[in-house]
């Protein structure tokens, strides 16, 4: 069974939603990223999305672009991110989903990447510029590795296409809550709940919602109906604000904690929901 399947099954049994924070590896340096991963583990992150810094992150808004630029002040990339991922899995037991633009993987070499995936520390892969039509070569590499290739569905994805993507999906569906790039927004998209429920029904997989979830109140609301809540920019922006060191750790820990409690507590205030997998 894949790591992600196990994680979501376990959460489903408890009637809880997954808290899935995102950080960029090496932002602003590897030591700080490691400390942030420790904090996320302490605060009850269920899955961590770890971003590979890339020069041209075209699906990302300003917060994550700046995070990549901070990380890229040193020569870093996929290998450095994988080193962090492996340590996080082995020492903290965190399920890690690698968030990588396709060129970082393609440039590394698909065959070499196959060996990485077989080492067992990665739970999944999120590749924002790899739609499912182009994903066959990567999917082949992942076959039998236990690493799930996560597929996106967005508000612009029509019904027929949703079914095709759902059929190809593994691990969970990443539902992009709005048309746009990653980043903080004032309000959540309208009709989110209905979308998530419909996708869960056709995919038979957990649905995690990301893009634009900016504060604990947003996170809590989405957690009432989603299987996972992905929070990136709001956390990443703290690195810009506090740099590194104690101030950052305190602020990061506080926000991650509030987010985690909002997500994990969401369904207790409602009637128990039994997600169908």
């Amino acid at each position: 069974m894949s790591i992600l399947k196990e994680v979501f099954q376990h959460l489903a049994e408890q009637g809880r939603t997954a808290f899935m924070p995102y950080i960029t590896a090496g932002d602003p340096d590897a030591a700080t990223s490691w400390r942030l991963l420790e904090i996320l583990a302490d605060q009850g992150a269920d899955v961590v999305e770890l971003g590979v810094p890339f020069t041209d992150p075209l699906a990302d808004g300003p917060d994550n672009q700046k995070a990549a630029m901070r990380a890229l002040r040193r020569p870093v990339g996929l290998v450095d991110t994988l080193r962090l991922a492996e340590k996080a899995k082995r020492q903290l037991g965190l399920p890690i989903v690698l968030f990588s633009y396709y060129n970082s993987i393609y440039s590394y070499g698909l065959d070499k990447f196959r060996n990485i995936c077989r080492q067992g520390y990665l739970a999944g892969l999120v590749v924002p510029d790899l739609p499912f039509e182009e994903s066959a070569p990567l999917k082949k590499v992942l076959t039998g590795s236990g690493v799930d290739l996560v597929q996106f569905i967005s508000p612009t994805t029509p019904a027929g296409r949703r079914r095709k993507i759902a059929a190809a999906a593994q691990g969970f569906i990443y539902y992009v809550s709005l048309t746009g790039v990653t980043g903080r927004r004032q309000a959540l998209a309208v009709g989110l709940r209905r979308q998530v429920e419909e996708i869960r029904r056709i995919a038979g997989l957990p649905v995690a919602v990301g893009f634009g979830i900016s504060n604990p109140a947003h996170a809590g609301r989405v957690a009432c109906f989603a299987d996972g809540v992905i929070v990136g920019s709001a956390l990443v922006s703290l690195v810009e604000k506090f740099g590194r060191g104690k101030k950052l750790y305190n602020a990061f820990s506080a926000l991650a904690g509030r987010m985690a409690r909002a997500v994990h507590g969401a369904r207790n205030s409602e009637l128990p929901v039994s997600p169908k997998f």
Partner: protein
Amino acid sequence: MTLPNKNGRFGDYGGKFVPETLMTALAELEAAYRRFKGQTAFKRELDDLRRRFAGRPTPLYFAERLTRLAGGARIYLKREDLCHTGAHKINNTLGQGLLAARMGKKRIIAETGAGQHGVATATIAALLDKTCDVYMGEEDVERQRLNLFRMELLGARVKIVKLGSRTLKDAMNEAIRDWVTNVQDTYYLIGSTAGPHPYPEMVRDFQSVIGCETKKQCRQLMGKLPDYLVACVGGGSNALGLWHQFLKDKKTKLIGVEAGGRGQAAGEHCSTLSKGRPGILHGSLSYLLQDRRGQVLPTHSVSAGLDYPGVGPEHSYLKDSGRAQYVSVNDKEALRAFRLLAKTEGIIPALESAHAVAYAVRLARKLDKRKVIIVNLSGRGDKDVEQMFSKGR
């Protein structure tokens, strides 16, 4: 077989490497393009605009003094610099503009490097009464300020991109981010044969009017096909526009001229096909200037329009198949050719096109007098005069 195939591939290259949110928009665009491109009314309207608005056909001009000076093959110039707005870019924006209008889009966005595509987009947006936003890197704004004013005069808003390399690459990143956000009512008018399918095919097709005219003009002027077609390559649209009609004429050699910049070291040039390796940027798989970690490298060229680390996927295919050959011309040679063409022929070329002129002169010297070289003079140099002036005469 004409390429790309139905998946948008030229051999291994091309494809659609974009966020899911854009996939439906690309499918709609492709459907609209397939529907309208063969339609009589569409073709008639485009043809009419090409003639009466853009000033086509452009002349094929024998550069007699330049030929004498080089002392070898005969050099002809395809005068795209005489097009309305000063470059070949208008060929593409007319076609895509009409398409955007038929698709009912209210807003047009574009990226621009030298500003020529931005101006051509702002022009068609004015003509068709559309809102227009053009993304331009801060560094390019500094060196092509005149084009910024031109776009504003034409009613477009210029959005200055301050992150990343602050050139064409980041302008394109921002344009894609805008499109992802406003995809429902916005048409993204890409200016080169780059980007995800169907852009490389569509832009090439709209630009291929250059080669269609050239072929006809060759028959009239010299009664034979040319021996060499020389064009500068940034993203590669003027080159493919000239070459497309000649791809099957194997005796006509195709030479793409990339910007050699200041030197051979990484970050000093934009010789993507000569020095890059395949990678994914801006929606397609193609040659790319990148480091060993897959990070896209900074680039340099004196010409903003060639200052780009990627290249259109069809060029990658033509390189690997050997049908086209790619060479580099550095800043110095390009600047020399810029002045040379002005003094010998009374034509001030765009710095981009000056790269092609420089190579054509180098090539002509080595060839027999009966050989014919056609250079795509893709743009005029008015936009570069200020930059040249500040460099010192």
